[in-house]
């Protein structure tokens, strides 16, 4: 029975629409995947030396143990977004003579082999190999690795249990922030409490039983839970949210634009993928901290231009690159309706403009790192407003891949084609090149002013540019309609 399930799984993977992507995207994605795995394995291998250098007076194993609690919490937090119990797949089996227990075991067993579990192995196995070379006791390391794998599985199954409630997410997020704050300000050391516990897993191989029993226990709870819930009406049905109607009356102030603005806002707010784009975009405000706090980048102005374009334009690129594919599921209706295409595009442009301004306001605190930061971000924001918005709308007319709005946003490549990579060139690289050129040839001030002027010119020509874009959308209409209809695009 399990063999048959496994073969189904195999087919579902290899016949999935994702594999039918264009070759260029496939190669690029493959390249990224390999790159990620290599980086992960390399950081696993290098972790030992890194930890020894960072904290020379204690064993790297001890240092790592102190941070494992954060790894567990953060992994739980991230998995909440990425991993869902694939319950829908069992619907076809309900009427076949397959025991419910084997269906439940199959689903749970399958999630054990999920990519997220494998990712941790890519990190921990190289780390363990280095440990062995460094003369750590083989038995201890081996059992430690088993213990870690058991913890990974426990996280995996725990996530399946708590995934149903949003509250769990905020609780975990809260715990992470609070414990890190306690550690950081030296109020109470979480590290010192959990460090010895995790280190015990290495020091006393017999303790491997604890995580193993834990994993089996959580698996059993999951099994119980799932076994009782294999009915169409209970758990298998995706949750139906109660609609909250709002007429967003204030959008009426924008006249004709209001209709579309209202639709866009509802689209963003009521669909998983778009909603998380908003949250992700907001989080990227902190992206600059990674670079601004490091000395190496202090004088690397082009890097700051990159940050400026990227941070103020994150929503622009995340959301904008898929226009009009966001509306793909009802695009033929839009095209047969009495719709002024121009207004449709203007509404998108307005929405993105607001996001750019908002993101710029959020990045103002970077002035703490010097007035250049503020000036560069301002120039980049203006450039994004004036130039990048028409550019990204123009590139949108090449989008022909359908997007299902209500699917999970993470690792979701729907709607992605070579176009999405091409967009990066004009949107991100061109402004950085312009900035770099003027910065090295003349000065920082001039470079910022050039970006501002280009942005203002774009704003002044906004109407003409949008007219051109509208024409382009008209020309590409049939291709878009046909492309958006293909469900497996």
């Amino acid at each position, binding site marked *: 029975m399990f063999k048959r399930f496994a073969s189904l799984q195999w087919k579902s993977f290899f016949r999935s629409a994702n594999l039918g992507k264009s070759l260029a995207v496939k190669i690029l994605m493959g390249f990224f995947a390999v790159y990620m795995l290599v980086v992960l394995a390399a950081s696993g291998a290098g972790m030992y030396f890194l930890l020894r250098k960072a904290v020379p007076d204690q064993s790297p194993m001890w240092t790592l143990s102190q941070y494992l609690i954060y790894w567990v919490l953060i992994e739980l937090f991230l998995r909440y977004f990425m991993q869902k119990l694939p319950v829908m797949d069992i619907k076809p089996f309900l009427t076949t003579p397959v025991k419910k227990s084997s269906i439940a075991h199959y689903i749970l067993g399958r999630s054990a082999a999920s990519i997220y579990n494998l990712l941790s192995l890519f990190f921990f196995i190289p780390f363990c190999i280095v440990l062995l070379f460094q003369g750590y006791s083989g038995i201890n390391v081996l059992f430690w690795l088993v213990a870690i794998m058991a913890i990974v599985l426990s996280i995996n199954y725990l996530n399946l249990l708590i995934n149903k409630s949003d509250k769990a997410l905020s609780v975990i997020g809260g715990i992470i922030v609070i414990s890190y704050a306690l550690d950081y300000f030296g109020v109470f050391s979480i590290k010192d409490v959990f460090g010895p516990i995790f280190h015990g897993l290495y020091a006393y191989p017999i303790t491997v039983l604890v995580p193993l029993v834990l994993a089996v226990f959580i698996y059993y709870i999951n099994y119980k839970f799932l076994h009782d819930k294999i009915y169409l009406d209970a758990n298998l049905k995706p949750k*139906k949210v*109660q609609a909250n109607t709002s007429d967003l009356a204030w959008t009426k102030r924008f006249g004709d634009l209001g209709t579309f603005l209202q639709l866009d806002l509802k689209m963003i707010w009521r669909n998983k993928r778009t909603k998380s784009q908003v949250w992700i975009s907001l989080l990227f405000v902190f992206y600059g901290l990674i670079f601004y706090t490091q000395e190496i980048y202090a004088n690397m102005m082009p890097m700051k231009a990159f940050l400026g374009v990227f941070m103020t334009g994150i929503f622009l690129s995340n959301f904008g690159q898929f226009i009009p594919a966001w509306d793909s599921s009802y695009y033929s209706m839009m095209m*047969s*309706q*009495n719709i002024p295409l121009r207004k449709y595009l203007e509404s998108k442009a307005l929405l993105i403009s607001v996001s750019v301004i908002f993101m710029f306001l959020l990045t103002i605190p970077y002035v703490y790192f010097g007035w250049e930061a503020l000036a560069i971000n301002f120039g980049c924001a203006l450039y994004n407003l004036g130039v990048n918005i028409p550019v990204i709308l123009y590139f949108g007319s090449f989008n022909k891949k359908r997007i299902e709005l209500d699917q999970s946003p993470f690792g979701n490549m729907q709607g992605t084609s070579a176009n999405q990579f091409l967009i990066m060139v004009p949107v991100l690289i061109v402004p950085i090149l312009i900035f770099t050129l003027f910065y090295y040839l003349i000065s920082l001030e001039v470079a910022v002013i050039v970006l501002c002027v280009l942005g203002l010119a774009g704003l002044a020509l906004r109407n003409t540019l949008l007219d051109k874009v509208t024409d382009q959308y008209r020309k590409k209409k049939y291709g878009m309609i*046909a492309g958006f209809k293909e469900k497996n695009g």
Partner: protein
Amino acid sequence: MITVQNLTKKYGTQTVLNLENLEIPTGQSFGLVGNNGAGKTTFFSLLLDLIQPSSGHIENNGVQVNTSEEWKPITSSFIDETFLIGYLTPEEYFYFIGDLRGQNKADVDALLAQFADFFHGEILGQKKYLRDLSKGNQKKAGIVASFIGNPQVVILDEPFANLDPTTQIRLKGIIKDLAAKDNVTVLVSSHDLIHVTEVCERIVVLNKGEVVKDIKTSTETLKELEAFFAG
């Protein structure tokens, strides 16, 4: 008045639609029947300028549909559930369509009030998004949305499929009322011969993209159609 001239649609070497000459006078209720792949949806898509003709053209009230968009304000349609916006509630969807067709909230509400029977209390005030409604209820919402804004041409593709018997009967009444108005042309396609003979004054049978029968509906029509499709 809808005029079709030498219209063909080809995919590669395969001709899926070939209509030499077809005229649908204003105010007619026009039924399109045919087996799967006969070209019904292709014809409606061409009429709505969703696909490009390989040759020939369609004129809708004197406007050539693939060169001008002037036909859009007088034409409305419901082809399939891809015409619905899943993340809106039915009310929001109706108001959105109303906005596009120059109808304010009160106009839309007045129109919706006429369809209270048809909705059977399952559409309005449900606090559900369209994507969470059943297929039949989605269809009801889509069909009524196509009546918003006093269109002169209404195009409905397979409106009876997926509807429960009560709703089918009510829909027949609605289409008949609509067709009774002098200036409204109704185009309906269906697999259900009984329904289509009941609501349409004229029935055109498509087979492999060509018109094989063009009948003015009479008491004999149903028998004639059944004989044709049994053959």
